């Protein structure tokens, strides 16, 4: 739901890197977004197109790589990769614990790289 502020941050950061690298035009930007986030790819591209219109990032394609949800078992420290709809009935495959998990990954919001001319 907060695609707009996130998009603003993305634009700020890539413009900074574009300047540092003397870039003429940004072609694509790769984001890594955790599966726990409700970010909508379509919206973020639309906001980005609008905000970046008059910059070197105008027309850049946003590629979103989803980072899976990984829980860590509080009992045996096993890392467990799950889908979001499995959150309710996760059981540790190693020690059979059914509670006390912490979130190891799945909440990231990260700009990985960009392609530029």
């Amino acid at each position: 739901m907060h695609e707009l502020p996130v998009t603003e941050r993305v634009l700020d950061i890539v413009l900074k890197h574009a300047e540092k690298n003397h870039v003429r035009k940004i072609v694509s930007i790769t984001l890594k977004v955790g599966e726990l986030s409700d970010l909508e790819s379509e919206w973020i591209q639309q906001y980005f197109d609008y905000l970046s219109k008059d910059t070197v990032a105008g027309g850049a394609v946003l590629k979103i790589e989803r980072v899976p949800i990984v829980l860590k078992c509080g009992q045996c420290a096993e890392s467990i990769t799950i889908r979001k709809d499995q959150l309710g009935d996760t059981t540790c495959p190693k020690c059979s614990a059914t509670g006390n998990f912490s979130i190891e990954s799945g909440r990231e919001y990260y700009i990985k790289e960009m392609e530029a001319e």
Partner: protein
Amino acid sequence: MGDIKLIEVKEDILADNDAAAAELRERLKKEKTFMVNLMASPGAGKTSLLLQTITALKNDLRISVIEADIDSIVDAEKIAETGIQSIQLRTGGFCHLDVSMVKKGLEALDTDSLDLIFIENVGNLVCPAEFDTGATIDIMILSIPEGDDKPLKYPLMFSKCHALIVNKMDYLSLSDFNVDLMEKRVRKLNPDIEIFKVSCRTGEGINSWAKWLKKTVADSLAEKNP
């Protein structure tokens, strides 16, 4: 067309906000002010809980409230009726508060002479979960009419809060809400969370919540600065 080159960016989008939040938390700690970030769906009872909590604690603690409402001053006016100072932040269309907005609210308050500041965050369970406000602790409300499946749908929110207030307990007998099941679901990702069952309508449970908060504030303010 020039050559296309790959530039490694490797930057966290939330890093600036997270750093500002950590800094604000430090500052409030030095000023001996405890800040609570209160989050919930629209209508879950955020303002009602604040009114009850203020009534319970205003003789013991110096309290203020920062209200983040999309575009109205109704909540701030209700708080003002208790005699407590409240600041209305107009968030426009924003779906959550970030540190820069909270700081604007704090500028209008004399934080040094306050013990406890509540932030009523924007009503939704998604966005406020991802943006640190700089508060000392995060609290959320789930109200009975919303259903016991919410921890499954909004895991981030439930996993980051120090306490969960289950509000509108007076509706329990009219609903199929399973409190034990909900609690089990919450504890899966947040085993240490404090859970309080209250009704802001009847006042049930408010005392034990207010007592816990008062003790948590006192413990935190008594901590020595590093």
